[in-house]
């Protein structure tokens, strides 16, 4: 009896040490990666890096157009993905909750969330670039990215709406509100924080995508800022990808600097998502 207890205790401790080592290894890898990138790239981060055009001289090369391309790409992506994603989420949760179609759609959405991003690129190439005739424009890229992040938005919208207590809906109905009014005035405001969290997380997914963008025709050398959705564009991940494959050390450093900018973006977005989630939980549980 006593022996068994001791061996169980030992097992417990061994497992704990094992788990800590695993976590430590993951963190250490991340740390080494970040330190390596900071050492290489930090010296390149200055004002001119943000406002210069791409160039063959690594020290004169900048991410101005890449950054502009990325921001306008994300902007249009959101304009397309937000309404469709959120409304789909509302439909699935509030209207079609129990019917077979909704269940079928639900399974498909979960599947879509796991499809490799390059597949979306191939779909976008055929559908938007060629059939719809948008060419290698920001619009094609944004539509493709919108497809990519829509499952995330739909799922998080559903989760957020699910968390709204039924008592609130019943209260609204009790006051004579229609279903539309209930959803628009009660459910959506109450779940706003949760939906926003999902949206921000989906942006941070879209921000680092390279493969589907290369497939739908994002370019590497674009010496101008896109002025509309039909313009050609480049994006920061593509600029990084291009720089890492160049022989000169200067470009490798540029790539590291680009990665720092991208990391800061993602950290910021994830940080905002965490803050919003905390606030929203406090509000709904209070």
């Amino acid at each position, binding site marked *: 009896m006593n022996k068994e207890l001791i061996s169980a205790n030992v097992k417990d401790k061994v497992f704990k040490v094992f788990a800590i080592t695993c976590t430590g290894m993951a963190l250490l890898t991340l740390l080494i990666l970040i330190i390596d990138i900071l050492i290489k790239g930090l010296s390149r981060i200055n004002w001119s890096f943000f406002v210069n055009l*791409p160039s063959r001289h690594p020290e004169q090369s900048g991410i101005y157009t890449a950054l502009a391309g990325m921001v306008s790409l994300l902007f249009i992506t959101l304009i397309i993905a937000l309404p469709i994603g959120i409304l789909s989420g509302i439909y699935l949760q509030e209207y079609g909750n129990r019917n077979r179609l909704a269940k079928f759609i639900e399974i498909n959405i979960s599947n879509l969330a796991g499809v490799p991003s390059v597949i979306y690129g191939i779909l976008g190439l055929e559908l938007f670039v060629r059939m719809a005739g948008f060419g290698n424009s920001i619009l094609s890229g944004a539509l493709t990215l919108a497809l990519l992040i829509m499952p995330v938005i739909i799922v998080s919208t559903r989760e957020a709406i699910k968390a709204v207590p039924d008592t609130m809906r019943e209260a609204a109905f009790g006051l004579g509100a229609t279903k539309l009014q209930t959803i628009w005035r009660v459910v959506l405001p109450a779940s706003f924080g949760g939906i926003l969290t999902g949206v921000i997380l989906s942006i941070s997914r879209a921000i680092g995508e390279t493969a589907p963008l290369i497939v739908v025709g994002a370019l590497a050398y674009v010496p101008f800022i896109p002025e*509309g959705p039909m313009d050609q564009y480049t994006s920061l991940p593509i600029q990084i990808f291009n720089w890492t494959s160049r022989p000169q050390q200067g470009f490798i450093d540029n790539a590291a600097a680009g990665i720092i900018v991208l990391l800061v973006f993602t950290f910021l977005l994830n940080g905002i998502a965490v803050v919003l989630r905390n606030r929203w939980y406090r509000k709904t549980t209070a």
Partner: protein
Amino acid sequence: MGVVYLFRHLPSMYSKYICTQLGHLLQEKLIIMMNKFRFEYCLLIGTLFLCSCFKEYKGKINIDGSSTVYPLTEAVAEEFRKVDPDIRVTVGISGTGGGFKKFLRGETDISNASRPISKSELEISRTNGIEFIEIPVSYDGMAIVVSPKNTFVDYFTVAELKTMWSPESQGKINTWKQVRASWPDKPLKLYGAGTSSGTYDYFTEAINGKAKASRGDYTASEDDNVLVQGVSSDVNGMGYFGLAYYMENKKKLKLVPVKLTPEAKAIFPSEETVQDGTYQPLSRPEFIYVNVKSASKPFVKDFIKFYLAHAAPLATEIGSVPLPPEVYQLSFKRFLNHTTGSMFENKSTVGVNLFKLLSDKK
């Protein structure tokens, strides 16, 4: 989306007028609605943004294709922008094959290529009615390297390279001793280009006699920097990649000269030996392909003229090897004459003399 399509095909003046009218209308509505619905507010801004895409430019040149030729074309485009900033030149990196796919659909004006157009691509060009002008722009030498700690390798003959890399060697040739009897019985670790790169196509054709015929059991990467890392940290490593990557990493690698035949002199790749064709068979020409329809546009003509006039110093600057000056002149004549078709339809680029070839064609 239909709206965008419609606007694109309206004359720009009308669309601008409609846009401003629409803009005023939307603005009025906006003020009323702003307080009510945030989502609709976002949508309206989006619509306004969509209307802003009708600016006219003097000219647009779309370039895509090989990532090996990209640095040179980027350098030319960068310099050209200083001369004529109203011409929008964009360059993509879809790879030689991916670039040709777009080029043969008429989506791009110029295609960068690290190998000549292939037979199957030529067939597509005929069915699609795309005519093109083939212009060589630079050389790329392929460096054969081993680890700097490797003391016994003095040179490779082409036959020895074939022993190492041919498809038949897969799983059989595993030690240095098997390549040359005087070398030690140490494991042979190979690093080479990934199957989708033009470097792979060229190396296999030059060494094994057939494009894409190679053993598969080696460390492959499309990113030459990965190969540099691999060979430099492996005492028994041996690899091949673009000369520019060796030049940037001289301290980490040992360059190995190549003998065309066992009796020939061992030649190191350098700007001179690649340019004058003595470094054989591992130096290859790189090309741009110009769509004939685009070539008749004056600003495309200006761009090509500028390209060929400035390619030599720019190629040296980015670590590539320029062609001899007379080849650039002949190429420009070829472009002005609108000589279409490929010089390499029934011919390999291995060991080719561009000057002779271009003179013959004329």
